[in-house]
């Protein structure tokens, strides 16, 4: 153990091995993060060469901005709905495929294709499906005798729901994959024993299956929430945050403020406030990771 070879101790080798990861972590996460917080106290803009520290002015502007609260609300609605929906559908889908009927292996593989393909392609696909004039959704409604002329992505009342549906479609396979993994760990003996005691399917599910998958359910819900809080691709490719900001989440708001209006100071401020909100989720997530170590 303590023997020295090539002059490096075990500890030194261990530290040497994490240096590449740590270095890039500092370069593209830690430093930019701290720098962005600093930027939030400035009036930096890409349109002007000079900038100054302006204290908390940006924060005052952001909190006085009537749109900001709406953006936070939109984000919360998007994050909750697009975590809960694919989780529930993914769970049902995993339970069905876990029954092991003919072709279930095949279905499992094909389902995952939805998750693996680029968000850009998924965004294009769903804006085509929801297209107000020629989309297949309206087409089907017409065939069923409805009017079928709803501009699903063009009105504020339905645009966010459409994005959530697209996100659900994209993420369902991901939840399914993890839950199928979790289902392998459920003790079938316990279910048999409960059956003998007269428990039905529902009771077995709520009393045995769900409790024994508790850890993995927490883990994927935490990961799902954090992922959705970050999510950018679908609201951007489908509706660019519109109509009338109906699908503008924090992620899009920071992007637009910084790279459309070039107001780096304000973008950094929104980002910092968002990071504080995110810290709450991260604590839950970290605790989960620690518990499972």
């Amino acid at each position, binding site marked *: 153990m303590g023997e020295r*070879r*090539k002059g490096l101790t075990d*500890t030194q080798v*261990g*530290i040497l*091995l994490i240096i*590449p*990861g*740590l270095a890039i*972590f500092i370069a*593209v*996460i830690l*430093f*930019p*993060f701290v720098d*962005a917080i600093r930027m939030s106290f400035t009036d930096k803009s890409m349109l002007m060469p000079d900038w100054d520290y302006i204290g908390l002015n940006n924060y005052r502007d952001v909190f006085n901005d009537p749109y900001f609260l709406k953006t936070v609300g939109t984000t919360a609605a998007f994050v909750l709905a697009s975590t809960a929906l694919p989780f529930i*559908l993914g769970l*049902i*889908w995993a*339970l069905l495929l876990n*029954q092991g009927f003919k072709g279930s292996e095949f279905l499992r593989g094909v*389902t995952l*294709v*939805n998750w*693996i393909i*680029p*968000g*850009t*392609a998924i965004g294009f*696909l769903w804006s*085509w499906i929801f297209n107000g004039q020629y989309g297949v959704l309206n*087409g089907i409604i017409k065939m069923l005798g409805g009017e079928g002329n709803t501009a699903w992505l063009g009105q504020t009342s339905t645009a966010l729901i459409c994005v959530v549906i697209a996100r659900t479609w994209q993420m*369902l396979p991901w939840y399914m*994959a993890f839950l199928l*993994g979790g289902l392998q760990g*459920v003790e*079938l003996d316990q279910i048999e024993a409960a*059956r003998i005691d007269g428990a039905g*399917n529902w009771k*077995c599910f709520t009393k045995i299956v769900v409790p024994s998958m508790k*850890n*993995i359910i927490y883990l994927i819900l935490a990961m799902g929430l*954090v992922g959705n809080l970050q999510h*950018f*691709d679908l609201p*951007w*490719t489908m509706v660019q945050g519109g109509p009338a900001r109906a699908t503008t989440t924090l*992620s899009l708001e*920071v*992007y637009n403020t*910084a*790279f459309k209006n070039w107001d*780096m100071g304000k*973008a950094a401020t*929104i*980002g910092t406030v968002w*990071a504080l909100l995110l810290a709450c989720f991260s604590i839950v997530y*970290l605790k989960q*990771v*620690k518990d499972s170590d």
Partner: protein
Amino acid sequence: MFQKTKGFRAFFWVSIVLIGIFVFFPLLWMINTALKPTSDTFSMAFFTGPKTMDNFIHIVTDSKIMGYLKNSLFVSFCSSLMATIVCSFAGYSFAKFRYRGRKFVMGLFMMSQAFPQAILLLSIYEIMRRLGLLGSYWSLLISYTVFTLPVGTWTLKSYFDQIPDALIESAKIDGAGHFQIMRKIVFPLAVPGMITIAIYGFVWSWNDLLYSMTLVTDNARRTLASGLVMTFLGMGSTNWGYMMAASVVAAIPVTIIFIFLQRYFIQGLTSGAVKG
């Protein structure tokens, strides 16, 4: 797992049909639209009408889009390689070495995906602009590598954990150095895990839109995801046939990789989490 009672049967069939349609129909509709001649784009025919490869031919002969495709292949290949190396080193270090700060660094890596990406971009963009590197792929490569750290180190750590310490100790007694042990014993045993992370890294960078859209400002150097957005979202009238064909083309490489390496991928990604 469940008894096939009447209630369960009903639930089974209703769910499998409804969720099945939801899961499988959209992708089929994408392919269906891509295969229709332009005059039929708006028809409701589902693989029944006339078919043509015109839309695909239009996409694969578009030199700009094929340029984006090449860029994407290059970037994804490089970041996949980087991710595998960096995560293997870190995963091995976390599994088999003990030093102060180990848990802390593990915690940091686990949080990599939790920092708001849009705000990180502000500074990365500024730094790259000042360094004159906005056209280069370096910022993309290291960013993508960082985002594979949580899943990557976690998955590989669980592979390295399974290697018995005695194996490493006996190699040491035989006089093998640290790097010989890694190359000859430890890493070969973790190859399935490394393949998982290589695919994961590839898919992540292939699919990323936000970073590539922001950090690559030179149009000719764009990757496929952002290139397609720039190509199609700016247009006044939309040609849905082209868009669906382009989407299929963008989906094909990752789908092929996935089909061939599926086994590694699903097991590898979920095993770390499931064991916990």
